[in-house]
């Protein structure tokens, strides 16, 4: 990890993500106001020393809502990508280890999933369920495991032919031991990189869904649905649209920097190609 942080991209990414995590974690302590408290005497106030990011159409403090919104974004990102990564590891490991017809079936499934426009798929599933934060995490998770599957499969396919795995097998190691002691630990780096990059895109998808009104439901604050309010008041309350957008941009940028930086630092193969 120390080695990875020597990479400037990774360091910047870790700094941005670390700060946002800290703010989200400390939200109840830092937030100057109750994020859901409506104050009819303070509607659409511009940013000031009292309301750092102004107030919204119901007089709620935007800064406090942004802090609690950060929790939602991070939670959705981590859980959704956690689900996707778990599915991807299991399917990819099976396909790469056992090969043969299982591999063919799993890879065809990946192709099928990739051929349906993801955002359409997510919206369609949500149309059949009810939009809620849990459904969103599950749906994003269930529609974004294909990359990890391909990655783990490719790692397993190449690792299986390596001497240390073959020698363990010759010494009589069982399949499960091979998978968990030898193959999986050696595939960890690309999995971590894809996890970090995956969180970035999950944050974007969640904010997009919430923006459309199909994600996190009000009054619960999320960056996406603060922006939806912002759209209504864009002519006279710029702060409602500007801050959530910048927050999403910064978060996604942070994860992407961290992911690319980790890839450069930990994976000598791609680092070599790039330089």
């Amino acid at each position, binding site marked *: 990890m120390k080695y990875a942080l020597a990479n400037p991209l990774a360091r910047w990414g870790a700094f941005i993500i670390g700060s946002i995590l800290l703010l989200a974690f400390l939200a109840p302590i830092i937030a100057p106001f109750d994020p859901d408290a409506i104050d009819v005497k303070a509607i659409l106030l511009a940013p000031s020393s009292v309301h750092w990011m102004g107030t919204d159409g119901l007089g709620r403090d935007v800064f406090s809502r942004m802090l609690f919104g950060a929790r939602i974004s991070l939670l959705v990102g981590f859980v959704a990508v956690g689900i996707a990564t778990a599915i991807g590891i299991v399917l990819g490991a099976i396909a790469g280890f056992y090969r043969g017809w299982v591999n063919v079936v799993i890879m*065809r*499934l990946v*192709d*099928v*999933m*990739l*051929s*349906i*426009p*993801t*955002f*359409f*798929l997510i*919206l*369609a*599933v*949500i*149309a*059949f*369920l*009810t*939009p809620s934060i849990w459904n969103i995490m599950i749906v994003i998770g269930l529609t974004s495991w294909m990359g990890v599957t391909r990655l783990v499969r490719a790692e397993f396919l190449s690792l299986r032919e390596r001497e240390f795995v073959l020698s363990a097998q010759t010494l009589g190691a069982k399949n499960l031991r091979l998978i968990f002691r030898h193959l999986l630990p050696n595939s960890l780096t690309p999995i971590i990189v894809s996890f970090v990059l995956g969180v*970035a895109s999950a944050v*974007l998808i969640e*904010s*997009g869904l919430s*923006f*459309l*009104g*199909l994600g996190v439901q009000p009054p619960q604050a999320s960056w996406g649905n603060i*922006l939806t309010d*912002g*759209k209504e008041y*864009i*002519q006279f309350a*710029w702060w409602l*649209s*500007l801050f*959530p*957008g910048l927050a*999403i*941009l*910064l978060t*996604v*940028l942070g994860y*992407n*920097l961290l992911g690319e930086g980790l890839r450069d630092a930990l994976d000598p193969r791609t680092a070599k*190609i*790039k330089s």
Partner: protein
Amino acid sequence: MTRYLLKRLFWMVPLLVGISLISFLIMHLAPGDITTTEAGFNPKASEESRQKLRKLYHLDEPLLTQYGYWLQRMGTLDFGTSFATHQRPVFWEKKDEHGNEQKGLIQDALPITLLINVLSLGLIVIVALPLGVISALHQNGPPDRAITIFVFVGFAVPGFWLALMLMYWLGVAHDWLPISGLHSLDYEKMGVLAQIVDSAKHLAIPVFISALGGLAGISLFVKNGMLDVLHQDYITTARAKGLPENTVVYRHALRNAMLPLITLLGLSIPGLIGGSVIAESLFAIPGMGKLFYDAVMMRDFPVIMGILTIGAALTLIGNLLADIAYAWADPRVRRGVGG
């Protein structure tokens, strides 16, 4: 070449079967059946539309029979009629029971989305190619650094937010560009040239927004591809035999670096089609994305299922076209040797 094409076509069959299974699965995701789902957006979902839905998808019959009917619908591209009051056919024009010809919803929406996608693919190629080449030729120089920053920001910026900001800045604050629809109200009365200008003004922000992610990705891709190719032996040979640098870069290197780009553009089609949802609903452009969003909000299931299937089919066609273009551009694939 023919054999190669036949092989590609053959591989589409299992994919189509898979798509039919997934879409069928989605239909049965809801607890109970879809007619009893609490229609969160439309509490007035009437008994009549429930009956219609039952009939349309044969929900009273065994699962396997239902799937058979669904396959038949997909095969004949007949997705029924919309639940909305106009009751238009989902896909293509059909005569209703009174003998009136009604145009299909997708029939109207598809050309608009395709136009936007073709324009943004064009924009992506025109802008990203030179950016990538410049970046590779001046690696770690100021232009490369600037382009790298652009790439990271381009990946991170939420398209709908940027759209909102541009809409406000260019449309509301300055009134330079129109912010909704495809045409102005007096479009019909304009001359041809004025019509083109009018459409271009309406499409400028949406096309830019839908191209943005691709711009960043493809520039990075071209850069890495060029760096790869520039270090290969035949480039050294070309330089050694005294060819001008421009010939080396553009005739020898870029041509080869561009090959994988064809596949990548093919693969980016589902993202472009899916990404049209937010841009189209924000700018009130009557394309596939807006049609789909409205259908989701109204729980108009026939339209949802129709667009899902057509979207997947389009992706397959896009990938096939990319494969054909690749085979056409790369003699190794065309003649079936190596590669």
